[in-house]
């Protein structure tokens, strides 16, 4: 059953993101270090996938290659069939650290991207976009607070608003809630999934948290440990959307999914 999930191919018009024979080599004094090799993965339109794997296996490397921030050593990455060239606003990124410009307000941080992506919109249209997404992530009263005055959780909310506001084709999330306490993490997962349910932007998210992976994603992609990491297993999560944490936790399959993932990670 696992092999069928791995080899599953989608029709070309269904695929949003396509990684083919992806390879990443870091030269070291002791010779080349092969981080990723022969990595193949297709992500469908309007799909939310999470990637789990051991620390240092190359998950973040893969994600930053998709974002265009890290060079590709071999193979190719295509968005809607077109190979990517460097970073661009068609692939929004939510970083692990919120990475807001601390000298700007929450509003200005979102506006920075919006201005770039909608250069022809009127001032009011752009302002409306910023305000819409900021209130979507629950920051109604904090538009004009400086980023440095916001808590980590609030900052990451702005990070989410910034990423969605530029309406990317693919959303890349690099352990966005890894630095938060578990209570805030739960809140932000809800914020993220609520806004995602509306926008349905194809999302690739790295996480260490098995429960987070099951709750958020359509498929959980498990990566083997490096060097030469590749996709080890893929687990489709067949809960209906929109999901609520309560129903997911109460579902009979939940613990089976969980066991599957933990079994993989413990080998």
């Amino acid at each position, binding site marked *: 059953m696992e092999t069928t999930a791995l080899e599953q191919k989608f029709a070309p018009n269904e695929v949003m993101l396509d990684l083919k024979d992806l390879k990443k080599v870091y030269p070291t004094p002791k010779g080349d270090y092969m981080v990723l090799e022969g990595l193949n993965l297709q992500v469908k339109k309007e799909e939310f996938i999470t990637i789990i794997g051991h620390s240092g296996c190359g998950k973040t490397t893969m994600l930053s290659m998709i*974002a*265009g*921030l890290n060079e590709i050593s071999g193979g190719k990455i295509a968005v809607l069939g077109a190979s990517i060239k*460097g*970073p*661009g*606003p068609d*692939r*929004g*990124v939510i*970083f692990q*650290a919120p*990475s807001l*410009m*601390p*000298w*700007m307000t929450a509003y200005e941080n979102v506006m*920075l*991207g919006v201005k*770039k*992506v909608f250069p022809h919109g009127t001032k009011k249209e752009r302002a409306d976009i910023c305000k819409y997404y900021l209130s979507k992530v629950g920051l109604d009263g904090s538009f004009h607070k*400086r980023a*440095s005055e916001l808590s980590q959780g609030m900052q990451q909310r702005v990070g989410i608003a910034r990423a969605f506001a*530029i309406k990317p084709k693919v959303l890349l999330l690099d352990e966005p809630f890894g630095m938060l306490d578990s209570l805030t993490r739960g809140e932000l997962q809800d914020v993220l999934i609520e806004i995602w349910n509306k926008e349905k932007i194809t999302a690739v998210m790295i996480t260490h948290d098995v429960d987070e992976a099951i709750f958020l994603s359509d498929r959980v992609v498990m990566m083997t440990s490096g060097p030469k990491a590749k996709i080890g297993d893929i687990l489709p999560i067949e809960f209906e959307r929109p999901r609520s944490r309560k129903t997911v936790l109460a579902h009979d399959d939940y613990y089976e999914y969980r066991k599957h993932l933990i079994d993989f990670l413990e080998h």
Partner: protein
Amino acid sequence: MKDAIIKGLRFIGLGFFEPLVRLISGEDSKKNSIETLKKIVAPIASILLFLGVWYSGSKSLYNTEANYKIAKVLKEQGAEEANKMKDCIASGDVSCQPNTLPSPLQVWESYKLLLKDHRKIGEDKEAFKVKTASLNEKRIAQGKNPIVYTGRPSFVDQIKTSIKTVFAGFLLALLIATPIGIIIGLSDTLRTSFNWLIQILKPVSPVVWLLLVFMIVKTLTKDSTSDTSFIISFISVGLCSMWATLVNTAMGVSSVDKDYINVAKVLKLGTFQKIFKVILPASLPLIFTGLRITLSVAWMVLIAIELLAQSPGLGSFVWEEFQNGANDSNSKIIVAMFVIGFIGFLLDRIMLTIQKFISFDKNEGI
């Protein structure tokens, strides 16, 4: 009201008055008394201790010098003259006072004297202006230059000149060093290709800069009537002090947090936007640290440069007093020393306040 005062005090870097303000307004008297004791009374005690050490030190130096003087007279001119000398020193007559470190009291007297002198010169100037007013009108009508006051500058005038020179030099350093620092910081190639030049020029002594500037400016201003000594000294001050800003700016620009750069890349910001919206604000704290060092270096080298360039100001005041060797020269030099230190401190506070005002990182510095 109270909170506004505290906030203001903190902003200008006088936060140590906070407990006193709180104490006066009757808030948590026990905790604030202790804080006041710690932050205000203790420094005052240290000032008193300093004055005490100074006083006893100058007393003992005075005695040593006096005994030496008497012994010398005794040896060369006999007992009678020695006794006369002793009486003379004891009577406080200016003609025979030992020349040594002045006591705090003497310095205070000199300070008052310098201010009095300033007032007197001010009155002289005023009188001169009134006297020459009608004559000058005539001269201007005839197309001649008006007569200006050319008397000796007062101590306060010299402070003003020094501050003017430092600001001109600082501005020059700012205008040269920040743009170059930004350009060098942005490009690895430029940084490596100019690093040797910066490293070699940075430790060059102010005196050498002065001579270099002198060589160039002397030739350039041959036919002009401008104030050459002022030009030479402010350019030298600028050149000596700009290195801290240059190095800090380049470092700040080149070491901007990678996350911010990644955000700029993902959003595909243009070069201009990237520099002004991301890189510059991110490196402002370091740039300001550089500017603060620059200003304090500028103030420090100014005194030496004025001394050498014969440019009026605190430096030449100190040097003239030293050459002068009058009875109160030493205490005037000490007055100048404190004035220099105090103004230096004030300049740093001003920079810190400006930094807090513009920079995003409110906790930087102090």
